[in-house]
C-alpha cells in the first residue's frame, strides 16, 4: 500500500491525534486497551512503556526498536504486514516513540526479508517526504528518525536483549535482566523493543479509542489477532480475526479443514516453541488466557498442523534440530541439552532408539525448563517435545519397538 492509498484509508490520523496529546496520556490509552505483545510473550504493552523513565531528567537518547526478526518456524505474520501495509508499522512506531519520548527508532529486520526491506525503505522515504518523520513532525515540535537495520540471521536475535546486542553489531547473546531494556537498553539508554504486529495496533487504538479496541475481541484480551495456519490443510493462509476466535473455526472455516484423506492429529498453536494441542482442544478460544488454560501458549498465533500421515517424532526432531542449531551457545544447559535432545530423537527416527531414551527425553524437558537456562530459547524448545511425549506416546513407543519409523 503506497502512502496516498494509506492516507485515503485513514492512515496517519492516529499520529495526528497522538501529537495533540501528552505522551503519558498515549501510554494510558494503550494500557486501557489491554493490548498485549503479539511477538509471543504477550506482555501488556502499556505497562511495558510505563517503565521507561520520562520527563526532563530522563536519560537521552531514548530508543524504540521494532522487532521484525520473525525467525520462529511456522510464523509468517509480520512479513505480510511489512510487505502489504508498511506505513501501518511506521505510523505505529512514530506513535509509540512519541509516547515514550524516544529520539531514534530502528526496525530490526531479518536479513532474508529482502522484499519487506524494499517495501519499508520506500515507505520510510515517503513518510519523511511528507513530514510524518524527521524534524518537527507535522509542526508538533517532536522529531524522530527511523533507521532500517538488516540483520544477518540467528533465531536468538528475536529475544529482546540479544536483539540489542545484535543491533550494537555484536554477537547476539542475551543480556542479564535486570536491568531491563526499558531502563538500560540500547547503548545503555532506555529502550522499548516491540513486535511488528503489536506496533501495527497502536495508532488505531489512539484514533478510535481503547473501548473500541477491546470490543473487537470475543474475550477479555483486547483487539484482533493475525492467525495463520500451515501444514496439510485445504487453504493454508493468514487471517485477521477477533482475539478469542475458536480454534475449530480458524482450522475448519478459514483454513478449510484437513486435505481429503487426512485426519487431524494436533497442532502447534503459535509457532515452533509452543505445546501441541489436540482434538479435545479444538473448541478453545484463541487468546492468551484460554490457550494457557489448556496447557499451551498463544505464542505468535500462527499454527502448524500435524496430520495422521506425518510422523510426530520426525516433526519433533525437525523442531529440536532447529533449536539445537540456533542455540547461541551462551549457557551450557541450552547448547549441550538441546544437542543431546536432537541426537536422541534422530536416533529414534532412524530405528536406533531405546526405552531409556524416553526417560532421558522426559528428563530433558525438566532440565531445560524455565529457570534453568539463561533465556527462554531452551524452555521454548522443549514445549513441543513435552507435549508430544504426552499426546503421541504410542508413536514414540512404536519407533522403539519396531526399530524403525512407522511412517517411512
Amino acid at each position, binding site marked *: 500500500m503506497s502512502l496516498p492509498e494509506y492516507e485515503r484509508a485513514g492512515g496517519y490520523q492516529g499520529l495526528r491525534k497522538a501529537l495533540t496529546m501528552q505522551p503519558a496520556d498515549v501510554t494510558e490509552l494503550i494500557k486501557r486497551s489491554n493490548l498485549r505483545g503479539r511477538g509471543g510473550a504477550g506482555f501488556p504493552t502499556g505497562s511495558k512503556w510505563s517503565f521507561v523513565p520520562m520527563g526532563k531528567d530522563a536519560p537521552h537518547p531514548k530508543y524504540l526498536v521494532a522487532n521484525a526478526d520473525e525467525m520462529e518456524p511456522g*510464523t*509468517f505474520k509480520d512479513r505480510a504486514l511489512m510487505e502489504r501495509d508498511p506505513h501501518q508499522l511506521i505510523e505505529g512506531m512514530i506513535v509509540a516513540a512519541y509516547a515514550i519520548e524516544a529520539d531514534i527508532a530502528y526496525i530490526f529486520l531479518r536479513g532474508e526479508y529482502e522484499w519487506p526491506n524494499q517495501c519499508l525503505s520506500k515507505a520510510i522515504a515517503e513518510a519523511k517526504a511528507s513530514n510524518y518523520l524527521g524534524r518537527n513532525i507535522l509542526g508538533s515540535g517532536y522529531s524522530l528518525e527511523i533507521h532500517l537495520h538488516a540483520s544477518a*540471521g*540467528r*533465531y536468538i536475535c528475536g529475544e529482546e536483549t540479544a536483539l540489542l546486542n545484535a543491533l550494537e553489531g555484536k554477537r547476539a547473546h542475551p543480556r542479564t535482566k535486570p536491568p531491563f531494556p526499558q531502563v538500560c537498553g540500547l547503548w545503555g539508554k532506555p529502550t522499548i523493543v516491540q513486535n511488528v504486529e503489536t506496533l501495527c495496533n497502536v495508532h488505531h487504538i489512539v484514533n478510535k479509542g481503547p473501548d473500541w479496541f477491546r470490543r473487537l475481541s470475543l474475550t477479555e484480551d483486547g483487539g484482533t489477532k493475525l492467525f*495463520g495456519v500451515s501444514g496439510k490443510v485445504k487453504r493454508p493462509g493468514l487471517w485477521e480475526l477477533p482475539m478469542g476466535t475458536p480454534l475449530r473455526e480458524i482450522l475448519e472455516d478459514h483454513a478449510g479443514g484437513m486435505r481429503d484423506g487426512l485426519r487431524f492429529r494436533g497442532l*502447534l498453536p503459535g509457532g515452533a516453541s509452543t505445546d501441541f494441542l489436540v482434538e479435545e482442544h479444538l473448541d478453545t478460544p484463541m487468546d492468551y488466557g484460554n490457550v494457557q488454560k489448556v496447557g499451551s501458549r498463544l505464542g505468535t498465533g500462527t499454527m*502448524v498442523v500435524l496430520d495422521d500421515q506425518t510422523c510426530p517424532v520426525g516433526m519433533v526432531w*525437525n523442531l529440536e534440530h532447529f533449536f539445537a542449531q540456533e542455540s*547461541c551457545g551462551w549457557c551450557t544447559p541450552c547448547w549441550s541439552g538441546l544437542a543431546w535432545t536432537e541426537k536422541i530423537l534422530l536416533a529414534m527416527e532412524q530405528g536406533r532408539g531405546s526405552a531409556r531414551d524416553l526417560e532421558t527425553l522426559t528428563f530433558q524437558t525438566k532440565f531445560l525448563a524455565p529457570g534453568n537456562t539463561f533465556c527462554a530459547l531452551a524452555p521454548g524448545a522443549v514445549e513441543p517435545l513435552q507435549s508430544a511425549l504426552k499426546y503421541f506416546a504410542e508413536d514414540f513407543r512404536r519407533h522403539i519397538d519396531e526399530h524403525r519409523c512407522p511412517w517411512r
Partner: protein
Amino acid sequence: MLTVEEREEIDAKLADYPNTQAVAIEAMLIIQRRQGWVSDEKLRDLSEILRLSVANLDGVATFYNLIRRRPVGRHVALVCDSVSCWIMGSDRMRDHLCSKLGTPIGGTTSDGQFTLLPIVCLGACDHAPAMMIDGTLHEDLNEQKIEEILTQYT
C-alpha cells in the same frame, strides 16, 4: 580493497548509529551483496574503516547464519528446512534439487553456478515448501517447479 560503491554505502550506514561497531554486520552484508562472501582482504579493509580488530569482525561474522566467509557460486539457493516446509515435503524437494544440480546442501556445483545452503523458516509457511535464490522467494515448490526455476538461472 573496498570498492568506491561499497565505501559509500558503508559511510551512509555510519550516519544511522552512534559508533562504528554497530555498522559491522550491515557493512559485511554490503560487501557480501556484491562478491557473494566476505574475504579476508575485505575484512581487513573494513577493520581499518571501522577501527575494529579483524578478530572482532570475524567473531561477529562467524556467529551469524547469513554472513559467509568462504566463496560461493554465482547464485545462492537458501533451502528452507523448517517445520512447515518439512511437513509439506521439503526433504523430497531438497533431494530433487541436489540431484538436478549434482551437489549436496552446503556444496557448490562444479561449474560454479549454484551454492545450496540450508536456511531456517523463510516466513512462507502457507506456501511451503519454499526456497530463496539470490533474494527472490520461490514458493509452493514441487519437482517440476524446481526444474522450471533452475532454467531461469542458467
